[in-house]
């Protein structure tokens, strides 16, 4: 027991390993997220195929208003595109702070997207007893809203660390966030197509 | 290989052969459940028997191998002997093992598929008796099975009675949560799912009184949702019983809903 040298009292984690772990961890999280989304997709298609009692899509239930839905989707795509652009900007010039303005814009668009999504959910005129199309869609919208909310928190974390000069944003951090937004955007697009057109 | 070890291996192999053969002979003659009251119960019994006869020698072989390798060469926990021979693997043995187990698995799967195909198509036994299958609806509700006989005016009964000379077509459905209709002796098990028609065919072979139980957890009285008085009776007895039951049911007949494979009962899901 005494033959070995004492370990140092304070051990500094290797920053390279740390950043690899963060990238890998966030991608694994997307994998887990994907299986959750797939179970919603399964529920949607399975209940649609079952149409028990004719209650998949009973009379009087219409898809969400197309204008609002398109707005939410456009904001979602825009937020993703802006975050992606910020990530590219940082990637081109690591260390430069030009990306901050772009990222702030992305945050604002993201918040707008969340606000419109919540507005959409509360103004659908659906109640949960109006069949399963309504049920899966509402639940899925909520799930997406939660995902966007997490994306917003992520951007806030990056921005506040950068602006207060405590935790400068690294290329890897921003790329992970951009990948996350890409994922949420693709899912939103899929949900939009399903809920609007595969009713 | 030292002679003593060879003798030991021979003894183990001999023990395996004797045990495996004795077990399989016993399994071949044992009256295994669920018995042979119906054609599908018979084929289930046969499948269970064959699987058991395959599993037993494998079980004995692995246990013999374990006992041999563990017991014969064991040393005390604090012994400091080492075996000089270091084995890291043997690709031939591995390939053989994998090929062997894959073959067994394929065989079992093909055998199961064939049995399943036979069970779900026309029964093989009843061809001598030309008749149409008797439709019997099993209605599960919390916590009771009732039975409807659409070819007898749709009367309903609290006990299952079926004739032994006809093929029976069960249609299992539920009025509330998921139940499972288990007619053990007949080898019939079918989930009763609300607004879903789950159909099973079978040909009774033996008359008798049997037990029916619910085999899917359905609430407080799940354990009591059984009936020890399910009967397979002769054709004559069945007709007598059906007439009696129709008389008993006469006061309620006008209130029963028209026969249908699934029901959407009047008090809806959440009342009203």
């Amino acid at each position, binding site marked *: *027991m005494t033959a070995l040298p004492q370990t140092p009292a304070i051990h*500094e984690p290797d920053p390279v390993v740390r950043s*690899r772990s963060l990238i*890998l*961890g966030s991608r694994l999280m997307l994998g887990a*997220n994907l299986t*959750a989304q797939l179970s919603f997709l*399964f529920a949607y298609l*399975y*209940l649609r195929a079952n149409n*028990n*009692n004719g209650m*998949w899509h009973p009379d009087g239930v219409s898809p969400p208003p197309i204008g609002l839905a398109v707005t939410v989707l456009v904001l979602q795509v825009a937020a993703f595109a802006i975050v992606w652009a910020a990530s590219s900007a940082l990637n081109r010039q690591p260390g430069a702070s030009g990306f901050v303005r772009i990222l702030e814009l992305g945050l604002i668009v993201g918040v707008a997207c969340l606000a419109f999504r919540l507005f959409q959910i509360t103004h659908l005129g659906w109640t*949960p007893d109006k069949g*399963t*199309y309504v*049920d899966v869609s*509402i*639940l899925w919208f909520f799930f997406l809203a939660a995902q966007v909310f997490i994306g917003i928190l992520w951007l806030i974390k990056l*921005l506040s660390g950068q602006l*207060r000069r*405590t935790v400068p944003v690294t290329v890897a951090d921003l790329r992970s966030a951009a990948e996350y937004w890409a994922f949420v955007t693709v899912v939103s697009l899929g949900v939009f197509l399903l809920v609007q057109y595969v009713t | 290989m030292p002679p003593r070890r060879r003798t030991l291996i021979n003894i183990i192999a001999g023990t395996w052969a004797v045990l495996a053969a004795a077990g399989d002979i016993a399994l071949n003659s044992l009256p295994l*459940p669920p018995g042979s009251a119906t054609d599908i*119960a018979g084929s*289930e019994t046969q499948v269970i028997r064959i699987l*058991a006869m395959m*599993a037993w020698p494998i079980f004995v072989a692995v246990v013999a191998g374990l006992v041999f*390798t*563990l017991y014969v*060469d064991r*040393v005390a926990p604090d*012994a400091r002997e080492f075996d000089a*021979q*270091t084995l*890291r*693997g*043997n690709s031939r043995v*591995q390939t053989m*093992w*994998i090929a062997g*187990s*894959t073959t067994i698995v394929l065989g079992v*799967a093909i055998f*199961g*598929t064939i049995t*399943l195909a036979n069970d779900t198509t026309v029964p093989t036994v009843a061809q001598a008796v030309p008749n149409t299958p008797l439709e019997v609806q099993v209605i599960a509700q919390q916590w009771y099975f009732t039975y409807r006989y659409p070819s007898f005016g749709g009367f309903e009964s609290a006990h299952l009675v079926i004739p032994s000379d006809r093929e029976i077509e069960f249609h*299992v459905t539920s009025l509330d*949560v998921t139940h499972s209709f*288990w007619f*053990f002796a007949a080898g019939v098990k*079918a989930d009763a*799912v609300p*607004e879903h028609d789950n159909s099973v065919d079978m040909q009774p072979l033996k008359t008798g009184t049997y037990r029916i139980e619910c*085999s*899917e*957890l359905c*609430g407080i009285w*799940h*354990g009591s949702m059984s009936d020890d008085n399910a009967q397979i009776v002769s054709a004559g007895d069945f007709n007598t019983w059906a007439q009696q039951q129709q008389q008993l049911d006469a006061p309620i007949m006008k209130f029963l809903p028209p026969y249908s494979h699934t029901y959407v009962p009047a008090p809806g*899901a959440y009342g009203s």
Partner: protein
Amino acid sequence: MVDAVAVSKTPAAPRPLSRTLHQWGLLLGVIGAVLGFLLGYFLGGLGFVDNNSNGSNIQILLAYSLSAVGFLAGMGFFNRLIGSLLGQRPPTLADEAYLHGEGAGLSRYFRLTVDHKVIGMQYVVMILFFLFAGGLGAMLIRGELLSPQPSYVTPESYLTLVGLHSVIMIFMASAAIIGPLGNYFVPIMIGARNMAFPRLEALTFWLLPPAGLILLSSVFLGGFPTGWTGYAPLSDQAVLGMDAYLVAFGLIGLSIMLSGLNMITTVITMRAPGLRFTKLPIFVWGVFITSWLGLLAAPVLASVILMEVFDRTFHATLFVPAGGGTPYLWQNLFWFFGHPEVYIFIIPAFGLIMEMLPVFTRRPLWGYRVAVGGMLGVGVLSFFVWQHHLFVSGIAPALRPFYMFSTEAISVPTGIIFLVALGTLWRARTRFTVPMLFVGAFLFNFLIGGLTGVFLSDVPADFSLHASYFVQAHFHYTIMGGEVFALVGGLTYYLPKMTGRQLNARAGRRQFWVMFISFNSTFLCLLAVGMLGMTRRVISYQPELQGLNIAASISAFVLGASMLFWLGMIVWSLILRPALATQKNPWESLGIEWQLPTPVPTYNFDTVPVTWALPYEYDTGQPAAIPGRTQPALAGGTPT
């Protein structure tokens, strides 16, 4: 910005108040839980959802969820999260060291500590607590089944008892090996100083005690009638205890998922230089494969629980046919999670026994690569078999042959584990220590578990055996006879490393034989009653089966007593017996974990060794790597 300046002036300033709060984290957590409960109860009572006559679901759901959040907040889990949202400076190295429990005594076990070894020990205690709580349920169930009619338990209590026993055991089993031994030894075995995400690791542990307590508290709300499978629409109908089940299971699923994420990342990114995947100890492989199952399967559980909450609370009809739903939705999604879940139990046990086998046979693991392939095969196939739980449910009859085949195909990779075990044992001079006895018992029990599984995978046989005690005995053979036997053996093996004390070998040997024989006599009887037509989860059964049930119950009581005796042995060696200086490496293992001092230093390694081999080279007697110094290349040990 004022704050930032202040912080940047004193970068390494200690923060006494936050540390005091942190020190009392458990107490604050309890206070947070109570406050969260009250807040949730209040918010739920504001009346934005109609109550039904069972009471207010939303109140209970919010109360439980917020109490879990409050508990974690009190423990200090959100400090860093909120800090980073506010752009605070990351914790200093001194803070990190404090969080690792550096220099702290026993108190580090009772607060948020991110040292993987502390978390491993916390897991040991929690697993044992829930193992015995679930075991108490089993004893009560067996006591009730002494008579074929309800005797001392009412039917409603019986269902709750069955439900609690099953969920507690599922919950215990899903973390039984990967929690204590995986967290403790995986970082050491891969030459890392900690997990990739230490805070996340602490979170995966601290999610579980609230989950367990919420689950147990369901008895105050009338219990839940559905067993662990929670089949809808029965669960839509159940009283408020069902909400406890949903919240608890949700937390468990979250923990499984996060633990999987953390383990995968750790194994991929934190391996010491030179440690290739082909040189990973087999236990690490087991944990690694399991983690993938947890990561990909548990989110499905989370989403299906979300759907059930929606159904119960807002009267949606996802599982109610009258409103367009279908019970099959629950069954499909639940079992899509549920079947990988049972391999989450058993694959770490495979890894664990294969890790112990070379130690006691004094030779390399026979066929390391096929062993890894076997576990991988089990893991991959486990995602394609879930419909074998639905053979009698009346959906998709055409798919039955496929699922029959895929289920039976799992026995090929499982058989490989037996091949590897037999190959390693072949002509080895096996040392009959207590852990080795448990390895042998694992192989025997799991053999029965596996062979009975073939009966259930065969559709015609399954028509007779499905949902009977045969199924119950089958999965107890795999989980209790497999995983729990591996856990008992594994803890006996590793406790000297974890605590510095060794269990009494003589008492252990006797305990083993009692446990092994009573286990088998219990579940062989139950296999028989299942074949004779006794349904699972019933309080009354056929009177003619009473004899076998009495035999099973008495054996079960003996089994329970032997488990209690084992617990007594642990307590005896840890607390009551005077501290004995045991050997550093009582099993003479070559594994790197045994080359470290006991207790293991906070950051495990001084310098991480760079040259690795599989730690099974007993012919040379050389450890794979010796921590603390850089090794010259070993024979056969150079990275390939």
